[in-house]
């Protein structure tokens, strides 16, 4: 009696847009954001609702646009390095890695073995941070604030490890073109092990309180299903695709850094609803913890971390173009870099996974959803606006 199929409602016009007369008093325009606690980051959703049901949605982005791609065109290759991490806040390291790898590829630099290991370590640590944020956000979207408290608590512990390694909490600026800035400090592995144990114990609590919670299941199971047929059309990558049963993981498909030497399998789910996406991310988080352990055990302890760079003030890179990608916590993160033989990049294009997830895909999947679920749907795609608009 509450779940009539209303997917054919309202009628569509010939050109595919909805036939809605806003003055009829039957529909309500509802803006969520940019000042709205249920929105991830700073973006806005313009909803047209009929009763409790969303009949149309438009995503508005651009509130965080700083024009990075333009700014980088007037900075030398080394000057670009400190600003790239600011593109994406919860997981800035992928910007550093993709940028550094693209520059190294075009400049023909080989980086030392140890730098590869440390880069992988940093990327996995960043992934842990990002997933912990996500778990808190997903539970928070359903009104379960305590999960966010717990996960942010352990995230702070992980930030301590970052601080120890890089000297900064959020913007690490550690993966520099040519290598990384430094080797691990003494005793890092031991302290990391403690942090990992603490994270695991909190995750066990989260598992009990969130994933085995009847109310959470009631809200999340069967809601926000992504059709497998949409995957290519909407460019869905990362955990959103893996939750739909497609093992799309750049770490496995086109391994970079030291991933070929690590032992892991891509985490997949099959139901592709909010619950599965959350669960895939939780298991991926556990996988990351395992990968950090593997990296710390297998990595060489000493060696060079930086290759010799040319004079960075007069560093010119010959004409060329390349695309470098990595698997960040939200999906495929990539840098498309074009050089023209001068000391400045000709063009940098950042491909953030949220670009397709939060606009084309979200606008599609939110149709016919309940307005109570809109915030949770947006969070479940794990989008982050700055990587859309840069």
């Amino acid at each position, binding site marked *: 009696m509450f779940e009539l199929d209303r997917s054919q409602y309202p009628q569509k016009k010939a050109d595919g847009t909805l036939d809605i007369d806003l003055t009829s008093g039957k529909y309500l325009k509802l803006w969520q954001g940019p000042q709205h606690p249920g929105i991830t980051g700073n973006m806005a959703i313009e909803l047209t609702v009929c009763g409790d049901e969303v009949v149309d949605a438009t995503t508005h982005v651009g509130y965080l646009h700083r024009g990075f791609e*333009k700014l980088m065109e*007037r900075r030398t290759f080394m000057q670009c390095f400190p600003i790239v991490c600011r593109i994406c806040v919860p997981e800035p390291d992928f910007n550093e890695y993709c940028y550094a790898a693209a520059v190294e590829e075009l400049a023909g630099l080989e980086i030392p073995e140890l730098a590869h290991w440390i880069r992988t370590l940093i990327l996995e640590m960043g992934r842990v941070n990002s997933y912990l944020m996500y778990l808190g956000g997903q539970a928070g979207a359903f009104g379960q604030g305590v999960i966010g408290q717990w996960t942010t608590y352990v995230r702070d512990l992980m930030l301590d490890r970052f601080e120890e390694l890089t000297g900064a909490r959020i913007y690490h600026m550690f993966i520099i073109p040519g290598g990384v800035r430094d080797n691990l400090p003494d005793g890092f592995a031991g302290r990391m092990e403690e942090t990992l144990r603490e994270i695991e114990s909190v995750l066990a609590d989260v598992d009990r309180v969130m994933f085995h919670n009847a109310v959470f299941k009631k809200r999340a199971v069967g809601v926000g299903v992504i059709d497998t047929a949409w995957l290519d059309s909407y*460019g869905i*990558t990362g955990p959103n695709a893996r939750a739909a049963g497609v093992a799309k993981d750049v770490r496995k498909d086109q391994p970079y850094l030291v991933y070929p030497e690590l032992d892991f399998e891509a985490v997949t789910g099959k139901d592709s609803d909010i619950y599965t996406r959350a669960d895939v991310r939780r298991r991926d988080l556990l996988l990351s913890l395992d990968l950090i352990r593997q990296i710390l055990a297998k990595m060489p302890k000493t060696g060079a971390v930086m290759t010799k760079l040319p004079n960075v003030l*007069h560093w010119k890179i010959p004409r060329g*173009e390349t*695309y470098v990608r990595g698997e960040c916590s939200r999906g495929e993160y990539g840098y498309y870099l074009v050089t023209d033989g001068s000391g400045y990049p000709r063009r940098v*294009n950042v*491909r953030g996974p949220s670009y397709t997830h939060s*606009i084309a895909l979200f606008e599609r999947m939110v149709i016919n959803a309940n307005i109570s679920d809109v915030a949770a749907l947006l969070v479940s795609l794990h989008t982050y606006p700055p990587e859309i608009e840069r």
Partner: protein
Amino acid sequence: MQQLYDTLSQRFSLGEFTRQRADLAFITVGAVRLHALLRHLRDQEGFTHLVLLTAVDWLEDGQFQLTYLLNNRAKCQDLGLRVMIARDNASMESIHDLWAAAATYQRELREMFGIDFPGSPRLMDDFILEGWNAAPPYRRDFDTLEYARATYRERPGRETRDPAAHMKQQLYGDKGDV
């Protein structure tokens, strides 16, 4: 990749082939054949994932380079298609019928480069900028520093140095005591 290029080269009159990495290559394509080629690559060759669509402004040549980057997950290959179009009144065929997500890229390109994609949905809506009345900002002839200086008042006291000259000063100095 080379093999793929050879088979398609005649049919779609492909241009220059650049092998960047074992799994990444770029091919220059004519604007007219692009849509057919993309459809062929998507349906026949397994390049089902549109990674990105972006533009590069070659101001000196008076051209925009559009880059369509496709990914073939089964073969772990990436293929970039370069399309050169004239910079004046730039216009390109829309590919939103092949990938729904492409409409967003085309909106961005329309706004940031001023490239028109006739038929693409919601092309003229504001995407990132709002109330923008200067030249499209990602074009090379748009000077962001000049615009920022003219539009936003700066706080006095900011020092800007030329990095090369500053480093020289720091390293060798006038007095030689550094």
